[in-house]
């Protein structure tokens, strides 16, 4: 299936719940309600053989936290990005770790760095952040490295 075929299949299957944009033959972006993510992901993995979660991006936007899941189909140039917008101040989304093992670490990482809760994630321990940063969200826009260093007793170098 190429990008436009996937676009029409997604429209057939989910109607107005998924907003699809084909940017090029290799890149497809689809905006999805966070609650619909597991259903869309199950459909993607069942309909496209060799489809895997490559990674996810969390991004602090003015209107909320953007959660982008990037899916790759083995053997094809296509990258399918599912975009969900999570409302602040307590952003949360259903976990994909119960759908595919590839989501496990990346969701823990986004939880570490941006404070997104993944409902139903089997393992919510810290993954990448140092213990001294346990209460910090370093990829949020309001994170101030200078204040953080002062708080933990290190002299800021910049």
């Amino acid at each position: 299936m190429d990008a436009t075929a996937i676009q029409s299949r997604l429209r057939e299957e989910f109607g107005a719940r998924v907003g699809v944009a084909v940017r090029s033959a290799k890149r497809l972006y689809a905006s999805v309600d966070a609650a619909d993510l597991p259903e869309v992901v199950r459909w993607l993995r069942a309909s496209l053989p060799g489809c895997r979660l490559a990674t996810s991006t969390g991004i602090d936007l003015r209107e909320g936290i953007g959660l982008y899941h990037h899916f790759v189909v083995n053997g094809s140039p296509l990258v399918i990005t599912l975009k969900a917008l999570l409302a602040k101040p307590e952003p949360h989304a259903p976990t994909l770790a119960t759908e595919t093992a590839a989501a496990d670490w990346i969701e823990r990482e986004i939880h570490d760095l941006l404070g997104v809760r993944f409902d139903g994630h089997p393992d919510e321990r810290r993954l990448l952040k140092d213990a001294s940063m346990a209460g910090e969200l370093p990829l949020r826009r309001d994170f101030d490295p200078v204040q953080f260093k002062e708080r933990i007793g290190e002299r800021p170098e910049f």
Partner: protein
Amino acid sequence: MSDPSSRHVVQIGPFHPLLEEPVGFSLTVEGERVVAIDARMDYIHKGLERLAQERTYDMVPILLERICGICSVTHSVCFCNAVEDLLGVEIPPRAAYIRTIIGELERLHSHLLWVGLAGHFIGYNTVFMWAWKYREPVCDAFEMLTGHRQNSALPLVGGVRRDLPVEYFPVVRKTLDELEGQTERLTAAVLDDPVLAARLKGVGVLSAEAALDYGVVGPTARASGLATDVRRDEPYAAYAELDWKVVTQDGGDVFSKAVVRLLEILESIRILRQCLDRLPAGAINLGTLHVPRGEGIGRYEAPRGEDIHYVRSNGTNMPERLKVRAPSYVNIPSFRSSCLGAPMADVMITLAACDPCYSCTERSLVLRDAAGARLLATPGLIEASRQKTFELARALGHAPDLELDPA
């Protein structure tokens, strides 16, 4: 057999003689069998994604070369692929070939590094000595072409920063000719060795289904029968114009992963010869580019598998967000599938089989003073090192068995 009262937890790392980088593995064992495995990763998070948001598009590739001690071309070219996807531009043909040349040299020295380490981990140090001896001339070739054996500082959004010195191509060709014979001999020796077959076949098997579920990439996926290779799936640089093939194996075990890497060395040599022969003339970059608002995704086949970067621009000269996902990030968690139920003794080589990233960038050949005069070469450096050891030993009061050779 599975008596929970006999469970023990064995800690490997975070600091361990066999792990050059800090990472902690907890193995829960029942007798000899591993029943649970957990990894702890939070020792060396460097905050590079945030740092990249404070650098201009010209500076980011230089920063990203420092993500990994081996894959320096990988991350910088992957970032350029992502920004070029955002811009919708094609780079000049000469730049595409130059990116291919440095990328394949990197793959050669990275695969040889792994072959050596794998030999070392199973106590087969002859393989270690051979592979690392063959690796040195490849790093020298990289240094000849770029000025440094690891960090080339060549990739730039829209092309490459500098041209390659074509006068060194004959030396690189000679290196490749020698390496081809050496790799063929090494591959034949490994494939025919009954001890290696007994040690590695059927060990640490990752099934094709598990490989897809964990989303593993690169040789780890190709050894489980998944024919995925970004160089063929989404050709970047010059790969679409070159003649080469994707190597796959069906075993999913450590032996298959070793075979995939050894055969890929030979494929890389083929790719490099074609690039050196056909390097087109012309511009090497697109000049200054303005990056408008938008987003782009770049993929790159690193020695360890698919690297993927997401870039979002808000129209300024710095990326608003850069997401980096290195191949080891998806390959390492697959240990849970490949190690469970295995005996303790097989776990080390299984952990090493996906080539978790190690850094090795230290080296000194010749020491010069500020004016450029040669102070010490290799024998002198070794002598100075022995002298220092001797002095330290004498200071500690056990000199007798460390007496320096009077000659």
